[in-house]
């Protein structure tokens, strides 16, 4: 085992060993996703055959899903739209709140700044599941049960603390001289925020935004609890219904799953190009 620093030519048997390890890693990582794809290519009637590869591969399931030709998927596009709308709305609010708060804490440095960042950190640590019960009831108090806004606010509540934490860490690396120069030029906090802070934080904004989008896109528990009409469901809730339904066509469930997986996968690889490993590095700095 050598580290990045030791870029010496590796010996053959080491390469073979690493090749085997690499193969194991790839099989381990991809098997469930491969299985999902296999089922998506399997005719609905053969979903129970347990084949290792699609015996009669067909794209019919994709046609069925995309044309909403099955009863279970009658609102697929509407629900995909809900997922997207909620994710975008939540991300916009997360970015607005976290950019403003992190700017205040790290650039304006008020006396109460450390208290705010402390609270954000605590909120970041609390496992979201543990707040599901009171969150549901509180949403009832606000009259938002069944409303998609409730899910948006839930994502906002859980993604903003993380976003603040990451933004704040990266904000500290911006030189103070920038702000001082701006102040001398007569810029107020508003100009400092829009003209200096936001543009310079763009790479982190991409990372944090991608995080919020994915959190929202993935959310199942809260979506199930908070939404209450098929036309307002997000895709995860719709897919969850398959678990409890008679004669549910699982190949179609897996097909929708493959389709639902594409946007976050694409987003992730794009964001990765934008800022390598930045999506995670902020979350645990040591």
């Amino acid at each position, binding site marked *: 085992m050598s580290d990045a620093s030791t870029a010496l030519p590796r010996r053959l048997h080491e390469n073979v060993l690493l090749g085997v390890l690499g193969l194991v890693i790839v099989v381990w990582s991809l098997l469930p996703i491969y299985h999902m794809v296999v089922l998506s290519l399997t005719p609905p009637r053969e979903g129970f055959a347990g084949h290792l590869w699609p015996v009669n591969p067909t794209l019919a399931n994709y046609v069925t899903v995309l044309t909403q030709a099955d009863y279970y998927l009658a609102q697929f596009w509407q629900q995909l739209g809900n997922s997207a709308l909620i994710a975008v709305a939540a991300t916009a609010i997360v970015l607005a709140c976290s950019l403003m708060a992190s700017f205040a804490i790290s650039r304006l440095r008020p006396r109460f700044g450390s208290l705010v960042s402390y609270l954000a950190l605590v909120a970041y640590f609390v496992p979201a599941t543990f707040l599901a019960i009171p969150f549901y009831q509180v949403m009832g108090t606000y009259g938002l049960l*069944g409303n998609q806004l409730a899910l948006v606010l839930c994502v906002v509540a859980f993604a903003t603390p993380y976003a603040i934490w990451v933004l704040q860490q990266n904000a500290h690396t911006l030189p103070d001289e920038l702000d001082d120069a701006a102040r001398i030029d007569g810029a107020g906090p508003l100009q400092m925020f829009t003209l200096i802070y936001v543009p310079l934080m763009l790479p982190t904004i991409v990372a944090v935004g991608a995080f919020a989008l994915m959190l929202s896109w993935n959310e199942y528990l809260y979506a199930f609890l908070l939404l209450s009409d098929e036309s307002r469901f997000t895709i995860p809730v719709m897919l969850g219904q398959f678990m409890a*339904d008679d004669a549910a066509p699982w190949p179609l469930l897996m097909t929708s799953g493959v389709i639902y997986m594409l946007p976050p996968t694409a987003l992730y690889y794009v964001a990765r190009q934008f800022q390598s490993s930045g999506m995670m590095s902020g979350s645990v700095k040591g």
Partner: protein
Amino acid sequence: MRRLGLILSTAVMLVGTTGALAADLTIWWTKGTTEVEDNTLKDIVARWEKETGKTAELSFYATGDTEAKVLTALKAGSPPDLTFDFGFDLAYTPTWAFEDQLADLTSVIEPVKAEFQQGALDSVYLLNGATGQRAYYAAPWVQMTPHVHYWKDMLETAGFGEADLPKDWQPFWDFWCDAVAPALRDKGERVYGIGQGSSTTSNDPYLIMHIYLNAFGAQVVAPDGTLQISQPETREKVIAALNSYVKPIKAGCVPPDAVNWGGADDNTSFLNRKNLVAMNPTLSIPLSQKADNPDVYANALRTVPWPNGADGAPTPTIISVKQILSFKASPNPDNAKSFLALLLKPETIGPMLQANGGRWVPVMPKLLADPFYSQSTDPHVAAMYKQFTESATTPLPHTYNRLYAKVMQEQLWQKAMGRIVIDGWETDKAVDELAERMTALLAE
């Protein structure tokens, strides 16, 4: 900054407008087995909207999800106006009526009272603990009784005919486990015998267990409401019934995942020919095949009466009357009643149930007398009609003692099965635990 604000407010507005616009009537309903079933209800809702000029919001959920949604919404003070799920009559209605949580539907039931079977009316004429009075606290709309299904074609592939099937209780089940399934396995088919569910997440095992109790003559609650389970004679019968229930599970004749089957997994497993026999409270299994596989529906699948009980006499079946509920805290009680009045007209619900293909049995004698049921040439509907009209029935124990609903709520029977098949307990020890908890629940 301004741009951010703009994005923010647009986003909020976009989401806000698609959010809940309060309808005049909210209905939460358990999804049917087929698209047709849901559409028949949608049609009536649309008709109500047209006739009244009001708006209704009808949401469908999977079995069990409706119950969970209603339970939490009730607690949060925001129940729907009307709702139906399979578990209500078994586990909740008597308790909720007693706790004064349900809307009094007497004004809806009274005018059409003459149309209903007496048993259906009795099942919803419930005591309210707050007023000390009985009233109609639910609307009976259909009824069901568990059926036995098997794959006739697989039986034949195994080298047997329907004439080979034993008529008596234990021999009937043993035949599938000891003869049919092994014969198919010898041919290389990976198939199990009986789809005997025992999960706490499904209501079916509860209903079917009560048929097993009937087969062994075990009356857990006497008609005067007293609990009998601890009396030696009854206890022996309960042990025998439970032993019969878990026998195929312990013998590996049941798909291993049946201990964790949800309300629909038994259908899924059976329909995909992973097991030979299924027991199900409605005709949902055959009906799911009717449209796409008429040949399977007509020839391969069979619906048969229960085998004779331990004493050799026909096993009495149980009937569960399904109910539509409205709550005291429901926001639009008048609209709920106006919709129910429309739905419960024989000329509305009759065609609706026929369009469903006969999954449900009507609770109105006039409708049941319709040739659609009484002279059906459909093998499954005919078998169902026969079971309803010819079999003796026993009421479920909660009819005699409303507190027994908590036994269902806590899924005590399934927990006892779990003790035996998962923890390896002896049956009498599991029954002791069951009896102790049951006594505590009914002592309140």
